[in-house]
């Protein structure tokens, strides 16, 4: 277990290093042009050279990367070109907003999607299964941001209500915070419920064919116990892997809908920074996403080794 853990952490670190290099090179492909924009028409060669020195662009690219990386490793992501505030605090503050929403979606969709999948799998071929499967296909096809627009419209048409546009952190007012996050949470949850239900259904259908389920059935064990205790436990390992995937997917979805609801999350920060060409913030936001995606994958691997006794050495 310890060797496995060490290996996984090293592998994750290597991926992170290469991915950070990719982000760096991509973003670095642009500042040259930024110097030109800043100099404009009146640019003198001396002025341009001074600016290049200022941005560190006179160094060879690998030196620039090493320099950037060593500063990032000490937590220095630089300063936003637009707002002048440290990138790390901007990115971290935004990340907390996105993370809260993503966790809410994860909990709600697991609590609804997994039982739906168990039910559909157990009743495979029946009417309820068909209804659940139609629901799945429909919501797998629906763009999350479109559902968000429709929910905004529907709620306003039916209840003459619109969510508040000014974000309140849970620390300031928990009830306001929940009210604000309600529609964004719903917009994202339907897709993930469908994804869960479909995934769990398939695994349950497979499990139902196996000897142990038939033996349980023959012994007269009630379906609730078979599903909730035995089948669920047997599909736990793939389910956890899937949860990791879902969580990363939710983080992606959060980014797309934040601007609709005016949530000051990571996605809005990233998209606005891209519009404003504020590259230190872009780099910081992408680094945050990468680290969290890689950490989630690592966590999934570790959990799955902890759960499955066959993988223990």
């Amino acid at each position: 277990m310890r060797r496995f853990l060490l290996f996984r952490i090293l592998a994750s670190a290597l991926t992170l290093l290469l991915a950070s290099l990719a982000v760096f090179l991509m973003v670095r492909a642009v500042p040259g042009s930024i110097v030109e924009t800043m100099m404009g028409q009146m640019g003198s060669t001396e002025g341009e050279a001074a600016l290049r020195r200022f941005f560190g662009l006179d160094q060879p690219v690998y030196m620039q990367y090493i320099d950037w990386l060593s500063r990032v490793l000490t937590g220095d992501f630089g300063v936003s070109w637009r707002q002048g505030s440290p990138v790390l605090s901007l990115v971290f503050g935004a990340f907390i907003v996105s993370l809260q929403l993503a966790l809410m979606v994860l909990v709600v969709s697991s609590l609804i999607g997994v039982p739906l999948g168990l039910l559909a799998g157990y009743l495979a071929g029946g009417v309820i299964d068909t209804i659940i499967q139609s629901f799945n296909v429909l919501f797998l096809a629906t763009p999350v941001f479109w559902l968000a627009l429709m929910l905004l419209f529907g709620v306003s048409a039916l209840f003459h209500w619109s969510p508040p546009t000014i974000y309140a952190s849970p620390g300031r007012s928990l009830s306001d915070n929940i009210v604000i996050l309600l529609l964004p949470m719903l917009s994202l949850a339907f897709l993930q419920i469908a994804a869960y239900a479909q995934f769990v259904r398939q695994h349950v259908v497979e499990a139902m064919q196996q000897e142990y389920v038939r033996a349980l059935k023959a012994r007269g064990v009630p379906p609730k116990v078979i599903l909730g205790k035995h089948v669920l436990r047997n599909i736990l390992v793939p389910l956890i892997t899937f949860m990791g995937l879902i969580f990363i997917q939710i983080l992606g979805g959060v980014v797309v809908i934040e601007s609709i609801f005016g949530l000051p999350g990571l996605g809005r920060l990233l998209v606005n920074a891209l519009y404003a060409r504020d590259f230190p913030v872009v780099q910081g936001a992408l680094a945050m996403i990468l680290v969290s995606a890689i950490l989630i994958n690592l966590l999934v691997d570790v959990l799955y080794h902890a759960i499955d006794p066959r993988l223990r050495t």
Partner: protein
Amino acid sequence: MKTLLDRARRNPALALGVAIAIIIGAAALFPGLFSQTSPLEIDMGRALQPPSTAHPFGTDHVGRDVYSRVVHGAGVTLGIVSGSLALSAIFGGLTGLFAGYLRGFSDLATGQFTGVILSFPPIFLGVMITGILGSSVANLVVAMAIIYFPLFVRVARSSTMVEASRSYTEAAQVLGAGDLRVIFRHLLPNVLPAVLTQYIILFPLALQIQAALGFLGLGVQPPTPDWGASLQESKDYVLFASWTAIFPGLALILSSLAVILIGRGLQSKN
């Protein structure tokens, strides 16, 4: 093609998927058959009109016909998705073919490279590439081709490894066929079905990403009648002119739905 129709007759869900796909495909290829109105003609005098006989899907904030924009958007949106996925399938498929056959260093290097791409959640990779390189159709296509490249590599690689261990490959090698001949003549035709299946599976996902990027303003730019871009423009009017958002969204849903149903129908045994 014939088997597809045969199967559709026995599987109503598949038949529905094929029917929707045919209609949307026709709109993408021949928009003129469905709408004679221009998707670009601005008329502020008739802005934000609800659906009527003259404008079956209503008009948008500058008075353009929403129906015509949805019809003409099919070619733009679906063209970009199918084109970029095709690019991805060709490059990813070939890379997987070579990596799976040659193994060794090239395989390891490919694995590490695709691992890096896969460590980015897809939408972020799209946002990053189109956001930094600038939003244009070419950059959008490149971004989407890169996002799905690793998934084609994986499928082609594992399928190649299975096929390479079969006796027909060995026979070809024993008879003195070179690596390139084995790869293109013998392995390629056998790996192709797996790559095509992957294409169908990834299509709805790629469509969602394409639409999301358009919606974020990073994909196709207005006034091109791309569905995602149309939805971005409709964002501020959805509360009182919901038709500007409903119809481009329904077009996206129906397209995804058609491909999902076809994919499921082809994968099921009967």
